[in-house]
């Protein structure tokens, strides 16, 4: 029989195992924090169980052996024979780390078990109650050779409902030796009345004779699955001289790790996609094919009478394309929870290391973002979280003295805002020391000594290159990596990072990143002869204002009342310097947009329509332009700029100050 090359599944196995370990870790941490949810224990068990099964199947013996012990221990927990305490959680968390390392070595084709993993495996083994070597397979006494067997087999009524088929059974027996059916009979239990007989039930029995030197275990194996589904009596035909028991065939002796193929596990960057997403794609492909054949049809015998059909077909094509594009983009979108999941562990480790107490709150784990962005958001977040615990949160006694609960709160939340994902890392710690930051900035020559600065402006200085806030660098945050690196990383992704802090009450770091680096839904607006695209997601409402709805402020700005607030008007033609635009507010359209909780009204000439815009960089051949996030190509082949709402809002705010 052709042997299947299993190495193609190794990569999937590593990926799912690492995910399983993440889940295991998260659940262990939840247990650690006192949650008694039984489902958590199941999750942990399941993860270990799957890794063990996979590792054994794919021949990673060391990983399988290690997880086997861990699983046995977990089985005791699951069945309630062992209570979970801090020591056990700790041991299991160390096991998670160890398994991660073992899997990494397996993937690289290196020797998998090392001293550390062996020590841990032994520790686990010793803990498992009565974990002696598995009882030797019940002595196969009576391994006597026989001439054959007499078998009396009576199916119980539910036999067929368990998917058994006596005929198959007989065929199996035939493979062991020559099978003779001595008698078939109707079971005693059957009623004589055929009208009440359920055809789905089995009421038959057979007396069989199997000829040949068939070993009893082989015979038992045939009936192994029928335990409880039949009455079975087996008797040897005649005993002959005993022979030595044949050696049991080794059960799938796991081969040594297939190093060669494992070495090929370079990070090809794969993505696990939910079946629903793939199904949606296939559905859409189907529709596209239908549309195409319809258009083909029209094209084959085109005359003007079919113009309407052609239009319909094209409209359909457009819809299909858009849907397909949506679905394709969605494939790359993953929940940020995968990044959040690292933090419980990190926080726990930092707590112990620093003698602090931290209550970690996670919100918005399901917020989705592009995989590329997701992969890069982790490091800046880790840095900010370390920083918050190291420098932000105080020691328990300091907190007590300040009248705060001993445990500090660290909150991570993620949500969509405009075309961005916004991640906030907030703590209720000491807050930034604005004076010290200012002094340091002056000392470093980052700002002139006499420059007036607001608190937020001072706080922003910590992101300047070379700035380090820690009076003494600890081994956690003071690794020579400063906030400037955080800012650079975030900016590289087209995002921004900011901080607000109140002394004694804590700090909030906010990272805003684009959801995807590729496409937005936009509203096309006209200003003068130009087209500007406003991201749909930032738009609150578009309205025509009566000419007298706009008031001038003392500073010369313009505001209008929208719902319950006054919003500044930003004349896009001024912001972007367009000639020949509508200047009377009453004759144009005001598009109310929102960014970071700030709303403004953008004055445009008119709305042209909605369009999906593939974002093209202006920087590639030119440079970044304030108020513009990129460009796109519109249907006539010309270029339209995409409005960076945040940038325009800042322009507006800046104009307010200048006025």
């Amino acid at each position: 029989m052709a042997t299947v090359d299993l190495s193609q599944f190794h990569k999937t196995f590593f990926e799912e195992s690492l995910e399983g370990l993440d889940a295991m870790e998260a659940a262990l941490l939840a247990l650690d924090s006192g949650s008694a949810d039984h489902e958590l224990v199941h999750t942990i068990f399941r993860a270990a169980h799957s890794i063990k099964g996979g590792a054994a199947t794919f021949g990673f013996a060391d990983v399988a052996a290690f997880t086997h012990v861990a699983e046995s221990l977990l089985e005791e927990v699951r069945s309630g024979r062992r209570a979970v305490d801090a020591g056990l959680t700790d041991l299991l968390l160390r096991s998670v780390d160890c398994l991660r390392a073992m899997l990494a070595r397996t993937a690289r084709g290196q020797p998998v078990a090392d001293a550390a993993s062996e020590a841990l495996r032994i520790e686990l083994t010793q803990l498992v109650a009565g974990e002696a070597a598995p009882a030797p397979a019940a002595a196969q006494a009576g391994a006597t050779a026989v001439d054959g067997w007499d078998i009396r087999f009576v199916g119980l009524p539910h036999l067929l409902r368990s998917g058994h088929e006596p005929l198959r059974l007989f065929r199996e027996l035939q493979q062991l030796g020559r099978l003779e059916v001595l008698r078939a009979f109707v079971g005693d239990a059957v009623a004589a009345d055929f009208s009440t007989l359920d055809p789905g039930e089995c009421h038959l029995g057979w007396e069989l004779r199997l000829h040949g030197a068939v070993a009893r275990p082989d015979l038992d194996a045939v009936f192994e699955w029928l335990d409880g589904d039949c009455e079975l009596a087996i008797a040897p035909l005649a005993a002959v001289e005993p022979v030595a028991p044949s050696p049991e065939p080794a059960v799938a002796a796991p081969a040594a790790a297939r190093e060669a193929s494992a070495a090929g596990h370079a990070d090809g960057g794969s993505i696990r996609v939910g079946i629903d997403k793939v199904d949606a794609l296939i559905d859409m492909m189907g529709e596209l094919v239908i549309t195409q054949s319809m258009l083909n049809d029209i094209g084959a015998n085109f005359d003007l009478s079919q113009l309407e059909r052609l239009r319909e077909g094209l409209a359909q094509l457009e819809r299909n394309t858009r849907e397909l594009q949506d679905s394709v983009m969605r494939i790359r979108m993953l929940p940020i929870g995968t990044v959040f999941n690292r933090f419980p562990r990190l926080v726990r480790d930092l707590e112990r290391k620093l003698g602090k107490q931290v209550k970690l709150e996670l919100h918005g784990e399901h917020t989705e973002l592009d995989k590329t962005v997701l992969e890069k958001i982790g490091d800046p977040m880790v840095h900010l979280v370390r920083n918050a615990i190291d420098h932000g949160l105080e020691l328990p006694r300091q907190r007590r003295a300040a009248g705060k609960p001993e445990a500090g709160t660290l909150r991570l939340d993620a949500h969509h805002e405009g075309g961005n994902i916004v991640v906030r890392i907030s703590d209720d710690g000491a807050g930034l020391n604005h004076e010290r930051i200012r002094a340091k900035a002056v000392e470093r020559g980052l700002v002139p000594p006499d420059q007036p600065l607001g608190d937020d402006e001072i706080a922003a200085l910590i992101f300047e290159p070379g700035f380090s806030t820690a009076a003494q660098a600890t081994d956690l945050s003071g690794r020579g990596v400063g906030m400037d690196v955080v800012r650079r990383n975030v900016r590289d992704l087209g995002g921004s990072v900011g901080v607000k802090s109140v002394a004694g009450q804590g700090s909030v770091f906010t990272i805003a990143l684009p959801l995807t680096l590729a496409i937005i839904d936009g509203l096309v607006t006209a200003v003068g002869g130009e087209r500007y695209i406003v991201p749909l997601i930032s738009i609150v409402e578009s309205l025509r204002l009566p000419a007298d709805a706009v008031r001038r402020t003392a500073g010369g700005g313009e505001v209008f009342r929208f719902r319950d607030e006054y919003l500044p008007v930003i004349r896009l033609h001024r912001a972007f310097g367009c000639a020949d635009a509508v200047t009377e507010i009453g004759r144009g359209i005001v598009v109310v947009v929102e960014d970071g909780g700030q709303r403004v009204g953008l004055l445009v000439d008119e709305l042209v329509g909605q369009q999906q815009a593939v974002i093209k960089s202006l920087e590639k051949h030119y440079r970044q332009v304030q108020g513009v996030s990129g460009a796109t190509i519109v249907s006539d082949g010309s270029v339209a700029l995409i409005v960076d709402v945040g940038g325009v809002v800042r322009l507006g705010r800046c104009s307010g100050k200048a006025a």
Partner: protein
Amino acid sequence: MHENHADTAPTVQQLTFSLVGEEYGVDILSVREIRGWTRVTRIPQTPVYVLGVLNLRGAIVPVLDLRLRFGLERESYGDNTVMIVVAVAERLFGIVVDAVSDVVDIDPATIKPVPDMGAIVDTRYLKGLATHAERMVMLLDVQKLMRPEDVETLDAALPDVRAAEIAA
């Protein structure tokens, strides 16, 4: 001043064009294409000589007008307006000139340094002077035309003005 060191040096091909009656050349190796005028999309907060951007087979490419670059005016853009698309490093940009003339071979040995001579184009943007068919060709240093520093310097002076404009 005539150092005859380059007998064996290959000639350099220059694309020549005219600007306000003078003849200029750009290294043909940096030229990607020559195209007629197409409408560009204006970009805010750019120096006046950057006319805007256009779609060059999917790339968003800035276009600058050489007349405006040197403080002159251009009356109109139309069918006769010519644009040379050049590449500097990986970046592309278009240069609007009056007319494209020819592709000529220049012997590098004949290239002379630029005296300050009051040409339209600031001598800082010239690599040298060459002679072709008895006519002087000024060799343009395209790298310097769109140097980011220039853009930044100019731009740095702008925000205050602009903010005031918006508020007005």
